[in-house]
């Protein structure tokens, strides 16, 4: 394994985190635009619920970004240690998702949710490191 500079390591982890956050936010926006899947399944059955999801363009945009995030993770793992990429990626994504959720999804990220995001972020880092 080659040893990339600190800046290229930061760039690789940032790419994983940003692509993953974009994917999560787009997927969440898609599911909110579709509506409660339990209700849709109660009215139109499982096929109706699957149809509602796969006919939503926003859902495909979200899944495309999640796929890009996965490939950027593979790329990062090719250059960096798993013990750095996995905890850093997983924990930072929680905080960026809280920020993106507040800005783009207009979610009510109150003090309780900020505290939870930071606690879980540090917890995931400690657990995965």
């Amino acid at each position, binding site marked *: 394994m080659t040893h990339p500079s600190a800046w290229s390591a930061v760039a690789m982890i940032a790419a994983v985190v940003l692509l993953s956050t974009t994917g*999560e*936010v787009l*997927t*969440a926006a898609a*599911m*909110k635009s*579709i*509506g*409660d*899947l*339990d209700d849709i399944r109660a009215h139109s059955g499982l096929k109706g619920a699957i149809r509602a*999801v796969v006919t939503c363009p926003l859902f495909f945009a979200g899944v495309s970004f999640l796929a890009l995030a996965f490939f950027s993770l593979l790329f990062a793992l090719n250059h960096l240690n798993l013990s750095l990429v996995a905890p850093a990626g*997983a924990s930072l994504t*929680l905080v960026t*998702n*809280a920020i993106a*959720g*507040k800005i783009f*999804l*207009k*979610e*009510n*990220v*109150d003090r*309780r*949710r900020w*505290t*939870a*995001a*930071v*606690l*879980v972020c*540090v*917890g*995931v*880092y*400690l*657990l*995965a*490191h």
Partner: protein
Amino acid sequence: MAHHNLSPRQYTILALVAICAPTGDTCLSRGMTNLPAISLAHPATLIAAVFTPWIAAGIALLIGFFASYLTALSWADLTFVLPATAFGNVIVALFARFWLHESISLERWAGIALITLGVGFVARGPSLTERPVAAEAAHSSAEVEEAQPR
């Protein structure tokens, strides 16, 4: 502050989100380590790997995770669902400790405690941000019901 009112079914979906992802990953990991090294020169061996029991089970569990994750996102905020996903890490660590009898360092116990605390924080709050339009619609439908005695 408005508190969430999740049904038992919705709690089950959140539990599936937390359990399916780490269990699926563990099955994939176990399946792939059982196989001989796969080279890019023979990609067909990767396709054959999909049909081995551990990997097939892992894929089925990850499909279950994605379906339950999408369902949860349709009725709860992203910032409510994500800590539930992270709680899966705690479940795997506890599995490793009490089922596989692996030792867990003090640092990891601290991680487990922090994630559990964080999930507890979120779970005590509302699951979905109340939208003014939705709130007005609910208010007006309640008024209509009141105005129309049955």
